[in-house]
């Protein structure tokens, strides 16, 4: 299983708007394309800093991601989502993580 982790930086006053975009656009686009929603979390908006919004999606592997990617690119809502999200964010990263099993030493 893999996780796609988007960590997006937004101004505090735009956090709710960005979360609405995730709820209303990204959720539909990503899940219809074949990804599973895992989590959404934010840093504090009470400390005078920009807020990081971290959204995590799951899928089997890079082969499956390639199919999800195709489905997204062919979905007009994906391009709308991209345009709206880019207008709200001021920075961020995307990383792919592979889940690892930890085996504690006896």
């Amino acid at each position, binding site marked *: 299983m893999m996780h796609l982790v*988007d960590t997006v930086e937004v101004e505090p006053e735009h956090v709710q708007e960005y979360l609405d975009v995730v709820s209303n656009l990204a959720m539909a686009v990503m899940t219809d394309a074949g990804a599973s929603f895992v989590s959404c979390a934010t840093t504090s908006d009470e400390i005078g800093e920009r807020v990081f919004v971290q959204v995590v999606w799951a899928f089997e592997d*890079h082969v499956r991601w390639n199919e999800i990617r195709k489905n997204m690119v062919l979905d007009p809502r994906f391009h709308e989502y991209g345009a709206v999200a880019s207008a709200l964010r001021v920075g*961020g*990263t995307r990383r*792919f993580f592979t889940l690892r099993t930890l085996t504690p030493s006896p």
Partner: protein
Amino acid sequence: MILRRFEVYAIRPDAPADQARDLETACRECGRFIPEVLDCAIGINRSDAPVQLVWEHAYASPEAYRRYMVHPYHAVVLDRYILPDAPQRIVVDGPLGAGLYGYGCDAPSYRMSEGWRRLVLLRLDKDSRQRDVERLHAALEQAPADAGEMVVSVMAANTMGAAWFDGVTPVMGPPRWSHIWEQGFPTRDALDSYRNGDSTLAEVERSGWEGFMDGIVNRSAELFYEIDPGPTETVRRG
């Protein structure tokens, strides 16, 4: 069948310069990480078309292309700068339509390790007869006989524009540019000499293809750039 492919990017005007360089590097060095990527080079567009970066490359077969598509470097590194929802996206949707063009061919007659590349994107009349397209194909590929400055001339249908998923099967409608005319010149002077010269095709191009072969070419656009393959060891050849 070899798949010849071009990705063309318009960089966001406010994109950080270091990130633009990172995208150039990611494209130029792709062959180091994905062995299926052949003849990998980049170029900075010097034509008036409002796009900046061109990434030219090839695959030995559709199967090789499909391995590229599922390689982590593609999803993790290249897409980081490109996909519409990627937080580090630095490209914008280009005025030339989707910035992916390419064609299938039997031999790498496009191959040049240095020099200047010129891409002429063509939109042929959608009702063109096959024999007229073949006549145009023959005329364009014979261009070096009339224009000695040109050392590479390949004309083909832009199949990759719609078949970008597996290299063979269209997953969307016909692309805005139906055909590609890929040219090569040893130097910028040779390129300019062709563009300003008196060969038949140079004159046809300057006239906007007006009336050429019964008006088979409806529209065209050009890109040209110096080929930058990066360090020699990163260029793989089939």
